[in-house]
Structures are given as C-alpha cells and as structure tokens.
C-alpha cells in the first residue's frame, strides 16, 4: 500500500511554523537587545542603572568603560522636567 504522504503535510507544517515563530521571537528579542540575551528578573535598581546607561550611551543595553561622563550627562536626568514651548 502506498504511504499516505499527504497526511504528513500538517505535521510538517506544524513543525515548520513552530520553528519559524520561535526563531522570529528570538531574533526579535536579540535585535532589541543589541545581539545580547535579554535581561530578566529586573528590579528597580537594574531599571535605574539601565536608564543611566541610556543617558550615557543612547541605548539601555549600551556599555562603555569611560571614566569621565560625556558632556551634558550631569543634567540629562532633568530633561524630563523641562518645560516645552508647545
């Protein structure tokens, strides 16, 4: 009797779609985190440090080892309170 290969198409489809969705999620997460694994279990301290990293480097996952901060860092946390002219 010939093998009912048409019946195996849904299984193949399931496997492919599962793998595709997983890969897409992983790639998307890595792209948002500059290619590094995502940070989990973040507490308010980590949130504060990541916000500081964003002010220093422009991205929450950006890192730098400069001892001196760039110009404008000392007051950049106050920007949120700046009055806008709109």
């Amino acid at each position, binding site marked *: 009797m010939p093998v009912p290969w048409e019946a195996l198409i849904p299984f193949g489809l399931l496997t492919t779609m599962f793998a595709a969705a997983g890969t897409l999620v992983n790639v998307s997460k890595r792209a948002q985190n500059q290619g*590094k*694994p995502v*940070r*989990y*279990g973040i507490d308010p301290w*980590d949130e504060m*440090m*990541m916000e*500081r*990293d*964003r002010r*220093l*480097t*422009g991205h929450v*996952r*950006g*890192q*730098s*080892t*400069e*001892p*001196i*901060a*760039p*110009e*404008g*860092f*000392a*007051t*950049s946390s*106050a*920007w*949120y309170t*700046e*009055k*806008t002219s*709109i």
Partner: protein
Amino acid sequence: MSAYKDPSTSSKPYRDPTPLPESVPKVQELGTTSAPLKSAAFFIGAYCKDYNDDFMLCKSEDRDPGHCLKEGRRVTRCAQDLITKMRENCLADFDKHWNCLERNNHQYNLCRKVERPLNKCMFEKLGLVKTIPGTPEGQKPIHEVEKPIFTGVQK
C-alpha cells in the same frame, strides 16, 4: 497641552535654569555604565573604602541631597581614578569579564571562569583583592570555590 520630546533627539544640550552656586566645586561624573561598574564593584570597595565609608556615615546623619557634597565628590573622583587604573593595567581581562556579565544577566556566578584571571591581574598589578563582606568564618568565599553547587543552565 505639552508633547513629550525625547531628550536624546534634542539638538542643543540641556540648559540648567538653576545651576549650582559657584562656591560648589565641579566634578566630572563617572561615565562607566552598569556592566563594567558591576565588574569593578568589589575593587572599588577595596580601593575607595575610606571615602565610601565617609560618605555613607555622613549621609546617615542627614538624607538631604545637599548635605554630603564634598564626600560625594571624593567618592566620584576615587572611582574615576580606579577605573582609569584598571583600564591601564588589566583592560583585556576587565573587558572580557564585563562582556561576560552583560551576556549573562549580570550574574556573577555565571562568569567565574572569566573572573579568575581578572582577580589575579588586579592583585598582581594593583594589589586589590576581592573580599565578600559577611562571609561566615571558616567558609570559603563563594568566588573561590572551585566546584560550586549552583551553576548556570547547560547550554
């Protein structure tokens, strides 16, 4: 209504409408981000112990932001000094360690293999030892245990 303007898109630097008085000396802020800082944390504790203790005791008297500015400046300058020295002497090991931390959710126990060369280099070049305060007497500090029980997920 006011629209939210992201500060990073601004073309001009922020102009502080109420700057500190001229009598307050200026200090440049520390530019190190979270992962290198976490990597250097115990060495900052060893190198800058006096200034850090001074600042914390001063703050424990009065939590007012304007109270301990002098001690705070000293803390910042000491940390900058150490980061500069670390970069001069142990840059390769330092970079490897904080990159490892950055990829492992900033957990020390997942980066022990990379930490050992850094500790060795810091001890040889700068004489700084990583000590974990509060380790029970007679027990080996966790960063010196060769075969720890809790390690990361097998990759």
